């Protein structure tokens, strides 16, 4: 992927999520949402090198993963609005997406054995697909994930566990919830874990690429721990962190700014305008889309 396409992908996620947050207040969306602002480099860096038939299982904070996977903005907007044209016809909403080989679910931890089972199946079926699943630092508190790590290691399952450590779970800092360290938790099961502390997509891409290639060829699980920063609130308007802290991470850890500097100004502006138009068009299409009929409940 060239620099400009990478930037396009980052920028698209940012704009999509800002559109969601801006319009939530206006009642266009209902329910909840967890935006990906600040973490875009993770999704793009990890997913841009997937093979067509690889599988992604994401969590509650899934919009960025979905868009980086190649998902359609209008279908995602529509799903968030509960429209018939949504990915799951409005049945799932923000946290429950499925399209091609992309899945997400909103219960912390529970997707980890499911994703592991998918990878196990791919192995048993002699497909060479890899599964990538995302979990947050807070989710490391769920016991079920360790059952899955254990089985993944025992049974040589081709899966990549991506821990996005944004150092916070809803409002609780990771220091209050995590004993020991994250890498050690994987190592205890004999799973190699690589750790990065960066918001630069170009640092994540090559590492993710080589790890995924190893998983595919060696048929063994690995972990990638990405230290990152969440700029947006956990959901909507529920950020308890100080304005100073937020200003600090936004000025030093913005993936869009970091990667954007690499592009010639003019090309970048042109591309930003294109993406802006695409996001707006997708949004307006979804706004005008119909709601589902009640046929879903017919027996």
């Amino acid at each position: 992927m060239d620099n400009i396409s990478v930037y396009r992908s980052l920028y698209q996620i940012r704009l999509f999520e800002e559109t969601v947050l801006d319009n939530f207040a206006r009642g266009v969306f209902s329910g909840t949402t967890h935006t990906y602002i600040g973490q875009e480099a993770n999704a793009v860096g990890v997913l841009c090198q997937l093979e067509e038939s690889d599988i992604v299982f994401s969590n509650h904070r899934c919009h960025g993963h979905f868009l980086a996977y190649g998902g359609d903005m209008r279908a995602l907007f529509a799903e968030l609005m509960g429209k018939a044209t949504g990915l799951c016809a409005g049945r799932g909403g923000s946290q429950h997406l499925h399209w091609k080989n992309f899945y997400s679910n909103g219960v912390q931890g529970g997707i980890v054995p499911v994703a592991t089972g998918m990878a196990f199946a791919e192995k048993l079926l002699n497909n060479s697909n890899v599964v990538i699943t995302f979990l947050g630092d807070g989710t490391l508190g769920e016991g079920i994930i360790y059952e899955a790590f254990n089985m993944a290691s025992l049974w040589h399952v081709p899966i990549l566990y991506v821990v996005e450590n944004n150092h916070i779970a809803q409002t609780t800092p990771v220091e209050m919830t995590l004993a020991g360290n994250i890498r050690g938790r994987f190592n205890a099961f004999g799973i190699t874990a690589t750790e990065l502390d960066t918001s630069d997509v170009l640092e994540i891409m090559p590492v993710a690429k080589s790890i995924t290639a190893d998983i595919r060829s060696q048929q063994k699980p690995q972990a990638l721990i990405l230290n990152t920063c969440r700029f947006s609130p956990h959901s909507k308007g529920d950020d308890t962190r100080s304005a100073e802290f937020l200003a600090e991470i936004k000025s030093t850890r913005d993936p869009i700014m970091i990667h954007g500097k690499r592009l010639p100004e003019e090309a970048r502006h042109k591309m930003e305008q294109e993406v802006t138009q695409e996001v707006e068009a997708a949004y307006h299409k979804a706004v005008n889309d119909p709601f589902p009929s009640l046929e879903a409940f017919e027996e």
Partner: protein
Amino acid sequence: MTDTVLSSLNSALHQALSANDKVYLLGEDILDPYGGAFKVTRGCSTAFPNRVIASPISEAGMVGIATGMALRGLRPVVEIMFGDFVTLAADQIINHLSKFRWMYNDQVCVPVIIRTPMGGRRGYGPTHSQTLEKFFLGTPGLRIMAPTSFGDPGGLIFDAIINTEDPVLFIENKLLYPLPLKNMLGDPDFDIISTMDEAPSYYVSIHGAPSASITLATYGYMAELAQKAMYRLAYEYEVFAELIVLTQLAPFNLSSVLESASHTGRLIVMEEGNLTMGWGAEVIARIAEASGSKSIQARRLAAKDYSVPASSLLETALFPGEQDIIRAGLQLTGKQKE
């Protein structure tokens, strides 16, 4: 050698493994020579070493793994060693396995079978004797089945393993395992009619008896006790009952019970789980709603609302037994005071 419920289930697992190479068994201690705590998987790992997988003691993880396998086109069958431990997998069953198909707008199907032995009367005490399916009944997207010694319990699970598109919780009452399969055609004392669908109900009546004045409805091992009780009700008290034995508990299909109860006007529902908020309560509610202006007198028999005691005297008193069924039958028909 006559077939037992155990041998029928065991052969069905062998047949399913052999019929479709997408079928996998997962469970704790299911490998030979042990063959599972209740021996239902005996021989499977010898015959199909690559498709019978010994799991760590991770009930939730195992159900999650099976769910992922099913999403990718396999047909996994999970054994939970004791039904009591199914609660460990509750999040996987309720928030993942049973949800995916509908939540993803029917774009996936998740054919996982979870089979597990339930039930008491063996002195195993509070955490190894329960009947917990009521906590899962009514979970959207989840089918719950219970074999009996009527019909073909192996056929029931074989069909589920090979054909289901939705998750199935398959409840095997432990006391059924050693019982011989019922003689469905030539029983001198009972007439048994099957509804012949994929999860049949069985209508059991006393051979040559006048039309029944009471309907008994149940599933699993309770059907054995109900059958004994109806025999005694007939021959000792001249109270004639019709017994409906269900093999699918969820989604509800109560047409057989409704049909019988609207003829007899009296219904006793029986289960081995605790009484309160149980299966029987929902059955009676539905029959009441469906029976229109006709009134049906109803009774529930179930385990008392305590944990299952180990001591045999206490345990026997906790569960509904043959005598309780007879008493309820006599009371409902006015032959004995309440």
